[in-house]
């Protein structure tokens, strides 16, 4: 079976039921290592549940999941870091303290964790914000700190659940480019869940489109439209064609 392949994530016939509610039905998907895979779908199609299953926080009712060949929930949890839509920064910690929390959790003390986190924090364009309190940060900055925290967990797999869902359109566009750059510098096996087709096509290498409840994968397409000039890209015929196909599949 494909799950023997090194790296990446394999989902085989994953079904999740909560009582009578079928959240996910027979989802099969392969996420290759070191790429960005987008999952697009309407609200309530079980995208978040899918990520929680991958992360080992939930177990599927049926089907198998493996992350880099590991299939037990504990082993999956060891390999995945989750970034939720709301940043969930801790107000009793400053920005760098939030970003370095995983290093502290791993042991080694607060001071060392901060020192270890500082270079990456700066590389992500956050230098100067180390000591800011969380309530002093804008929505966009908060998401950057939350992403830094996710990266600093030192996991191979990043699961991003609507990371820009709560931001205004301009900040959102800015962060999409920022994320593309960040993942070029720090490549990880990344799954980006979003309900925004454009965002998925711009940030991801591949996009899987999911249907409304019960969620299943109805289309997979190549993307990789990021990196260029945004305005030109979203007006180009290949982009428009990909967008048309995704929107049609969503309907």
């Amino acid at each position, binding site marked *: 079976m494909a799950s023997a392949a090194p790296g990446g994530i394999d989902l085989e016939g994953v079904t999740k039921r909560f009582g009578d509610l079928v959240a996910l039905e027979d989802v099969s998907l392969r996420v290759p290592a070191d790429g960005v895979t987008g999952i697009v779908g309407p609200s309530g199609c079980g995208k978040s549940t899918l990520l929680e299953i991958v992360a080992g926080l939930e177990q599927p009712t049926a089907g198998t999941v493996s992350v880099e060949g590991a299939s037990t929930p504990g082993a999956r949890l060891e390999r995945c870091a*989750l970034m*939720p839509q709301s940043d969930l920064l*801790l*107000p009793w910690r400053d920005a760098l303290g939030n970003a370095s929390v995983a290093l502290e959790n791993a042991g080694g003390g607060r001071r060392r964790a901060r020192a270890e986190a500082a270079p990456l924090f700066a590389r992500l364009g956050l230098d100067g914000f180390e000591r800011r*309190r969380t309530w002093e940060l804008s929505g966009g900055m908060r998401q950057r700190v939350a992403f830094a925290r996710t990266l600093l967990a030192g996991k191979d797999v990043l699961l991003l659940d609507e990371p820009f869902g709560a931001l205004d359109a301009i900040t959102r566009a800015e962060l999409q480019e920022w994320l593309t750059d960040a993942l070029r510098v720090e490549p990880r096996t990344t799954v980006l869940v979003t309900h925004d087709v454009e965002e998925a096509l711009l940030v991801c290498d591949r996009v899987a489109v999911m249907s409304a409840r019960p969620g299943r994968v109805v289309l997979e397409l190549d993307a990789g439209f990021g990196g260029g000039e945004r305005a030109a890209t979203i007006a180009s015929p290949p982009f428009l064609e990909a967008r048309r196909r995704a929107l049609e599949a969503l309907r």
Partner: protein
Amino acid sequence: MSRVRAQLAWMVVLAALVAAWQAYVRLRGVPQYVLPAPTDVGRTLWDERGPLASAGGVTAREMLAGFALALGFGVAAAIALHASATVRRAVYPLLVASQSVPVVAIAPILVIYLGFGLAPKLVIVALVCFFPVTVAALDGFRSVDPEHVRVMRTLRASRTAIFRRVELPWALPSMFTGMRVAASYAAVAALFAEYAGSGSGLGDAMREGTAQYDAPLVGAAVVVLAGLALALFGAVTLIERLTIPWSRRVE
């Protein structure tokens, strides 16, 4: 300027009440042993400042030590109740039911068991203060957003790390609310304890004053007790502001 004036409004109200009380006693010629005038109480406060200060010192020690005991045991109990569902089911209903036993009723029994020294006072104050601290701390632990816990689990956090870095700080504002309630109970509890059997403290001074129809002395003791209660309440509020400045910045 107008804000300062608004902050001092309570002084005006207090002054008006005291003035009305003074006028009533003087104009109606109320005998001192029935209702002493504020000036009589003030004079006794000054004349008896030595004995009142030492009685106040005794009561303050009982309040502080009992409060500290309640804080230690209350937080420890809340942690145990939070950590284990079995403990919660087995102990929590009994804890709530135990609150229907009035402390006034068991105070004399404790004096019989523990004598006339400091011990029964500490136990009585601690018993009264324990419940609000425990309930508030437990409420705080249980109100943690489960999403925070899920994300922390993917950030390499062990059970203890989640407690230390999320649940405990999260519960602090609620704990301080419980501590403020407990602080305002501590004075009354110490007074009960002294009434039940004691040779010192403000409760003893009040009993003596009542027996001798020395109403100004009783009034002066009440003023000192109120001052102690306010001081403890104020200290808790001050510590809260210094230790968790973030709590007023969130939402």
